[in-house]
């Protein structure tokens, strides 16, 4: 969408965006030749169309947040659906295996042992657990539905 100042035959430049209410989106454009201003007003349906496209009239002034459209448009979301990564808890990059956990892992058939170890290790990293113990394995097994592994 472009706005052309017919008088000057120049494209009007985006100047300002407002949401004045009633579902209206107002975008103000200015002619760089004669400084004439015009406001484009969208009705609520048109505003929703733009929002559903996930674009911003006038361009983005701040970086897009992940899943921005979903967050801003979806109704009936869970109260605690998005949580911040806990900055106080440094990410666990290496998981130590306690000898008892190693012993238990040894009872897993050898042809799947590597895969099972990786699943437990990934779970521990995701949950900030630095040492794998039989108790941690029980928690992981329960959460991951790995009964029997």
């Amino acid at each position, binding site marked *: 969408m472009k706005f052309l100042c017919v008088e000057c035959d120049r494209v009007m430049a*985006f100047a300002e965006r407002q949401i004045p209410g009633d579902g209206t989106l107002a975008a103000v454009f200015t002619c760089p030749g004669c400084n004439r201003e015009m406001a484009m007003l969208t009705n609520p349906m048109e505003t929703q*169309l733009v929002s*559903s496209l996930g674009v911003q009239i006038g361009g983005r002034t701040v970086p897009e947040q992940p*899943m921005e459209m979903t967050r801003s*448009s979806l109704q009936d979301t869970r109260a605690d659906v998005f949580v911040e990564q806990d900055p106080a808890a440094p990410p666990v990059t290496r998981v130590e295996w306690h000898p008892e956990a190693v012993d238990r892992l040894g009872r897993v058939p050898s042809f799947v042992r590597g895969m099972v170890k990786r699943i437990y290790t*990934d*779970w521990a990293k995701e949950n900030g657990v630095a040492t794998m113990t039989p108790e941690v394995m029980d928690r992981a097994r329960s959460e991951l539905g790995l009964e029997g592994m």
Partner: protein
Amino acid sequence: MRKIRTYGQVEHETGSHILEQVLGQRARIDQRLASIGATIAIVSGKGGVGKSAITANLATALASGGARVGALDADLNGPSLGRMLGVAGKPLVDGDDGVQPVTGAGGVSVMSMDLLQEDDAPLRWRAPDGDGFTWRGLAETGVLREFLSDVAWGELDYLLIDVPPGTDRISRLLDLLPAPSQTLLVTTPAEITRFVVAKSARLLRDAGVAPVGIVANMTAYVDHEGATRPLFEGDGAQALAAETGLEVWAEVPFDPALGTATDRGSPFAIHDDASPAAAAIVALAHRVERQNHGRHA
């Protein structure tokens, strides 16, 4: 009459860069998928054929073979993958690289509307009443786009995408992901299912999507003693294969234990390898692996 220039003749941008914003969305999908070995669309066109159960069980079967697997529930109106993979209601963590998927059964990374909405909430939008027909499809496509591009899938060998019923939903996925590495077309022996799924087969063929394999679900009934009995008369899946030239990659009998296990959030493909249904899904996983050999992330 004054001569006014056309849109194309006016080169100066107004500052909105709408086209660049849309192209940027597409680029983010490509960037995210670059770290994924293979994308596998599980489609049918028909509802109630067991796409989600096949997806959940196939995902865990692949993961149990050591693969890194993600499962994206594209069924926004009737999400079930979160529940089937045991993660419904778990919070989503905002990470540096996007929203982190939740780890479900068998270590599968999951994203589903199950995780976002209250249990009994229908899919609704913060929007004015009455004009939904004009923008609802756009909004749903937007969510699917964000599930693909804004979820920190990380390095995966396989991303399975459970596509809801309706050929239009297959088209919607192909708009965002024109060339899935593999497409599994789920059907049943019922003639009415064959009739509907044939439309999806034609849609995929016309879109140039390949390879496509038929997964014949509920081909028989496994009773509580493990005996296999016919469930439907006729064989719509084989008829579909003959009609379309597509190959049947798996025949999965109906097993009540499969339903029970997936309801519990613990797909049984990894627990009950004695079951003919589990064996069929594991065999399908091996077929998928062979087909994608060398594509691992």
